[in-house]
């Protein structure tokens, strides 16, 4: 049986776990840990991913797609390279309503680009948030080249996640030509 791997990365609290949960056919194998009360992160969410999230989509008995979500906090970045090994492509999640994370998102994007010359797309997540930046403004802010797909996304909606995954697959296909 062939297995294919895709990585979902991005800054802390950008919606990586939610993205995988929305599309995975199995309950996501998550390595979330409760955040220490009183920390800045704990005000954002109660738990964070410390190693990886793991989701699965079975295509047929010969082919399975695995989705790996990276831990968003920098102190776990030693895991990134391990997760990037052999990936078919990757998705960079960016919280559209938190411009303070854009620089970090760009840095993560560049790090993953350096790990492997694989295709990738950028998902402008939380587009349903009232403070969300327009994706085209985000493209300029993040200095994303015009040929790279920057897609509006709401990670808690399965259709939106599906569209992002499809666009990544189309990109992979285009780059094979």
């Amino acid at each position, binding site marked *: 049986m062939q297995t*294919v791997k895709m990585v979902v990365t991005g800054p802390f609290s950008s919606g990586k776990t939610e993205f995988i949960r929305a599309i995975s056919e199995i309950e996501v194998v998550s390595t979330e840990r409760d955040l220490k009360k009183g920390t800045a992160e704990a005000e954002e969410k109660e738990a964070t991913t410390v190693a990886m999230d793991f989701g699965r*989509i079975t*295509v047929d008995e010969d082919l399975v797609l695995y989705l790996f979500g990276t831990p968003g906090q920098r102190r776990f970045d030693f895991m990134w*390279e391990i997760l990037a*090994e*052999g990936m078919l492509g990757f998705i960079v999640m960016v919280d559209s309503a938190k*411009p303070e994370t854009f620089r970090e998102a760009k840095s993560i994007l560049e790090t993953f680009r350096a790990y492997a010359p694989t295709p990738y797309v950028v998902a402008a997540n939380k587009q349903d948030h009232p403070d969300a930046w327009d994706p085209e403004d985000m493209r300029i802010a993040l200095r994303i080249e015009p040929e790279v797909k920057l897609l509006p996304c709401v990670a808690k909606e399965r259709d939106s996640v*599906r569209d992002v995954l499809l666009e990544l697959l189309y990109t992979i296909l285009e780059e*094979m030509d």
Partner: protein
Amino acid sequence: MPLQGNLRDFSTTQLLNLINLSGRTGTLMIFDPVPTGEKDAMNNEKMAPGDERARVAFAKGKLVHASLSGQSGDLIAVLNKAGKLTDQQANILRERAKGTADKALAMRLIGANYVTQNDIVNSIKQFTQDVVYNLMTWNAQPFRFDDASMPPNERILVPIDLENIIIEGARRLRETEELEKHLPNLDMALKFPNNPKEKFKGIHLGVEEWRVVSFVNPKNTIRQIAKANNMTDLEIRRVVYGLEQAGLVLLVPPAGAEQKAATTRRAASSRRKRQAPVQRDVVSKLIDKIKSI
């Protein structure tokens, strides 16, 4: 959709670039930072917008107007600053033309041969650019871009291409960094040296220098002198630096002045990995599967 954030995360130069590339129309407002006591997603202190400090208007990606809060940006102030009107002329005009819109006043001044149309356009351009160059040195203020807001009708809007502003701003930023290193605290005061007569003998000062010199007093902070003269932080630093280097003034701490701190940056490193060989038909299968979800 809103365009808001903090200059700490997204600098003025980056904002100008975004506005230029997206051809936006509207007004950028920059506010005093008010600490909220909370942390943002990057673990930095979250700042709420306080009092408005600056307002910059754009039309189709071009800079058209800029003003700082607490500094007069009307036509008289602009022409006075550019040296097209003397202080006396400006004061008289302020009295006589009270309530007159800038556009109407411009027509009257041109008609009376006080100034030419070119003088007005160039002075407004220079004033607007100076405000924006000043904003480029700010790095901790909350901002918001409002698509619906534009300056009042009576203002004269002069469109200026942003590309050159961005390049010139970056150059000035380096100069500013040097000046800031030399004169980090604008809450310091100035005083004359012991033998000022000797020092000033044979010295030819420009208008800006004389304006600053006239306010030299240990009671006045440099910031207050700048405000009184309608000067930006960069302009006052440049003048004070020159005067101090020439030995004409001395920097002294005024009573109760406090020191402030600066900020930091970081970087990352990377390695290469092999890509897994995957066939085209595998990707097509994946596409079909995802489509069916």
